[in-house]
């Protein structure tokens, strides 16, 4: 299996997980974020389930040398908590509450070819391009490696 095959299968699996868990239904997202109204806490279990598996995977990571389809495991995340992080997360959160979609479910919904998903994903791409035009140095894309080397998560 090559990296691209792995990524495709992983994307497929991720997508089905999003659908099964309810993340592709904006009404469910809005219900989950409605802390002060009719709060539906069910979607907290989505993050819980994903976190349980990923915490186990991260524990395993220390015992492995290097990944089969990559040169190294990710570096420890940066620690600086700055205004960009908080402002970015806040802007994202407002959009999430407004549209009921975050990037994964929006892209998965493209498979259903609904008008909202098409409009949302197109606008999301525009939002990213605007960000890049404002905040990223105007370098040819291939020279922009240093910028992603500092990416966290």
């Amino acid at each position: 299996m090559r990296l691209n095959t792995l990524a495709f299968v992983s994307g497929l699996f991720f997508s089905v997980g999003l659908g099964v868990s309810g993340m592709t239904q904006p009404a469910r997202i809005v219900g989950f974020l409605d802390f002060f109204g009719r709060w539906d806490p069910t979607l907290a279990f989505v993050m819980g389930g994903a976190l349980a598996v990923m915490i186990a995977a991260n524990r395993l990571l220390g015992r492995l040398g290097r990944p089969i389809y990559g040169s190294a495991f990710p570096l420890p995340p940066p620690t600086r908590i700055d205004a960009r992080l908080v402002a970015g997360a806040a802007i994202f959160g407002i959009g999430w509450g407004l549209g009921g979609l975050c990037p994964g479910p929006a892209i998965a919904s493209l498979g259903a070819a609904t008008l909202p998903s098409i409009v949302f994903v197109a606008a999301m791409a525009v939002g990213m391009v605007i960000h890049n035009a404002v905040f990223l140095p105007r370098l040819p894309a291939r020279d922009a490696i240093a910028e992603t080397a500092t990416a966290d998560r």
Partner: protein
Amino acid sequence: MALGGGAMIGVAAAAMLLLAGRITGISGIFAGLLRPRRTEAGWQAAFVAGLVGGGLLLARTRPEWFRFEIDRSVGAIAAAGLLVGFGTRLGNGCTSGHGVCGMSRLSGRSIVATMTFMAAGAIAVLAVDRVFGGAL
């Protein structure tokens, strides 16, 4: 359903981490296609194709999982998408990158980001509900 679906998401992200050393942050993967890098663009495109393909398969059997049942105009949906695109780039991650991958490695940045986007989302929902009567 929520827990099982979440576990599937976790398995997909764990496979990318353990086998490929890649972090499954969807906003970052999608943004990568807008600024392609030679070593990453291939798998990023394949992952996005998998995401869309999964939706395609599910939509045949479970179309109700993709119904947009909140009262939003096309303009409001476009505005939401713009904010999500811009915000996830500025804050370097979304629900998957910060909420799942970052939190699972106890990244302080990701914990702060996740609390922030959840609080901001709650405020947005509250505002749409109380100020605009649930429709926008």
